[in-house]
Structure formats: structure tokens, C-alpha cells
């Protein structure tokens, strides 16, 4: 068991170091920090309104950055290794293919977590200057964005095992966008749909898509509304189980693949 864990961590470490060198990662990170910083320029509002705008825009920018990271890091994670033939020496050893998938995923998530932590430091630092206290609720909200990124990255990893990185990336973006509007728009669209075929299609889409908008507590954080802890626990559990299932399915898909 310890031997397997060591193998998974070794694969994750290599993936993490590879991901750190990606240009798109650095550009996205710089732009998001710039977007968060630029909200402090809105000095013509009073402090209460400015804090609301800061929270709203910054959380939206961080969520967007998280989505980009999840897509970029997951879509090319394993196909890139197979195309460059660097996966073969690893897989030729006594490494389970499911462990390889898990290791690569954990490497991608380690990179995403580092980026999100950097953004959290900048955002929470600015917020602490305005509010004069550390906002634990916003820090918790950012943790849920990270869980959402983990779910999207798991889906991207699964797609990347069946299609090319470009198609996998596009499909993951599609899931990310549709998952964000699942409850707010798709639910209403099913009720409004006049044609039975359209309604059936929307219902199918609704059942398959992950509830990504449940991870967003932006409205609660901006308007200081209390969210029940039990609900947050359900959402966190949902996200973690979703990741576990998708990664298990990815492991099976990769194990059955003829390399």
C-alpha cells in the first residue's frame, strides 16, 4: 500500500513540475491578479459598496481562472505524455494504470491548488485591508471553488482518455459552462420547453451534468447571507464523491485502452 502511494506521489510530483512551466498558466494567473487589483481603483463608491464589488468581481475572476486552469491542466495531461512517449517507461514498470491516472490528476490539482492559494492571498489580503479583519467566510467560499475546479479537472481527465486534447478541452469548457447554469437556467428551460423531444433532451442533459452552481456561494458572501453548514457539507461531499467516481471510471478506461 505504501509502495503504491509512493508511486502515485512520484507521478504527481513530475506532473506538478511539468505544469508549472506552462505559459498559459502564468498568463491567466497574472491577468486574474490584475483583475482583482483593478477593483481597488473603484474609489468613487463608499466603502460598503466597494467591498461588495470587490468580492463579486474577484470571486468571478477566481472562478473563471479556476475553470481555465482545470481545462488546461487536465485536457492535455495524459494524452501529452502518450504522444511524447514519456508515459511508456513509467507504465512498463509495475505501476497500475489507474494509479498513473490518479498521479497525473493529483499533479494537475497540486498546480491548481498552488495558483488558487496565490489568488487567495492577494484577494483576502486586499479584503482584509478594507474590512480590517480576516474574512473566514470568503476563505471557505474559495475552498468550494477549489472543489469545483477538482470536479471539472476530473471530467477533463476522463474526456482526454477518449478524444484529442483539443476536443477534450472544448468538451470540458462546455461542461463547465453548462454546469454553471444547470440550476439557474436549465431547470427553467425544461419547464418552459414546448416540444417533448426538446424537453427530453434537456432532462437528459440535466441528469448528466454536474451541479457546478451549487459550489458557488458568491451571492451569500457578497450580501452577507448565512448558508446552513449542513448544506455546505452535502455540497462538499457531492464534489468529492463526484471526483472519486470520475477518477475510478478514468482508471478503468485507461486500463482497457490499447497503448
Amino acid at each position, binding site marked *: 500500500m505504501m509502495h503504491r502511494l509512493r508511486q502515485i506521489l512520484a507521478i504527481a510530483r513530475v506532473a506538478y513540475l511539468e505544469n508549472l512551466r506552462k505559459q498559459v498558466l502564468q*498568463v491567466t494567473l497574472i491577468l486574474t491578479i490584475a483583475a482583482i487589483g483593478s477593483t481597488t481603483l473603484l474609489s468613487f463608491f463608499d466603502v460598503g459598496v466597494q467591498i461588495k464589488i470587490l468580492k463579486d468581481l474577484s470571486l*468571478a475572476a477566481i472562478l*473563471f481562472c479556476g475553470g481555465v486552469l482545470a481545462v488546461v491542466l487536465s485536457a492535455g495531461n495524459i494524452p501529452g505524455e502518450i504522444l511524447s512517449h514519456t508515459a511508456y517507461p513509467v507504465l512498463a514498470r509495475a505501476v*497500475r494504470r489507474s494509479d498513473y491516472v490518479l498521479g497525473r490528476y493529483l499533479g494537475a490539482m497540486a498546480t491548481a491548488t498552488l495558483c488558487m492559494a496565490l489568488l487567495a492571498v492577494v484577494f483576502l489580503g486586499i479584503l482584509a485591508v478594507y474590512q480590517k479583519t480576516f474574512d473566514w467566510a470568503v476563505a471557505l467560499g474559495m475552498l468550494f471553488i477549489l472543489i469545483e475546479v477538482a470536479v471539472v479537472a476530473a471530467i477533463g481527465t476522463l474526456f482526454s482518455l477518449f478524444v484529442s486534447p483539443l476536443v477534450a478541452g472544448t468538451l470540458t469548457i462546455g461542461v463547465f459552462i453548462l454546469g454553471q447554469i444547470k440550476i439557474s437556467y436549465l431547470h427553467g428551460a425544461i419547464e418552459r420547453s414546448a416540444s417533448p423531444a426538446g424537453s427530453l433532451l434537456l432532462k437528459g442533459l440535466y441528469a448528466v451534468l454536474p451541479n457546478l452552481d451549487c459550489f458557488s456561494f458568491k451571492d451569500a458572501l457578497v450580501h452577507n447571507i448565512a448558508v446552513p453548514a449542513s448544506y455546505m457539507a452535502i455540497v462538499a461531499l457531492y464534489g468529492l*464523491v463526484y471526483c472519486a*467516481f470520475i477518477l*475510478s471510471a478514468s482508471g478503468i478506461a485507461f486500463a482497457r485502452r490499447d497503448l
Partner: protein
Amino acid sequence: MKGFVRTVAVRAAAAAAALTLALGAPVASHEDHHHAPHHWESPEIRAQLTGQTGILLVAWVAAAAAGRLIARREKERC
């Protein structure tokens, strides 16, 4: 060097455009936030999430068992 600068500039422009669109959405939704019900207040969504988590948990256990079986067969073949 010129190619690198161009690549970075194009990527930065694309990311900036996407970020502008993404940031526009929350500003636009500020007006109607009072009318839309929050997801954490809806018992229907809570029940939906609980049900889906249960289904996913069962599916995960099944997938993990299948994965272990495949790994054992892989080992036997080797």
C-alpha cells in the same frame, strides 16, 4: 523572440477578452439577484444533491471493484 512575444500577446488578448466577458456577467446579474431563489434555500435542490451523492457513491464503489478486478487480471497476465 518575435514569435514568442506575438504568442504571449495573442494569448494575453484572448484571456483578457474572456475575462472581460466573465466579469460582465456578475455586474449584469446584480439587478435581479433579489428575484432569483438561492440554491442553498431550496429543499428541492438539497434533496437532488443528496440523491445524486448516494447514486454516485454506489457507482464509485462499483467502479472501484471493477478497477480492482481489471488490475488483478492485468497482474495475472504479466
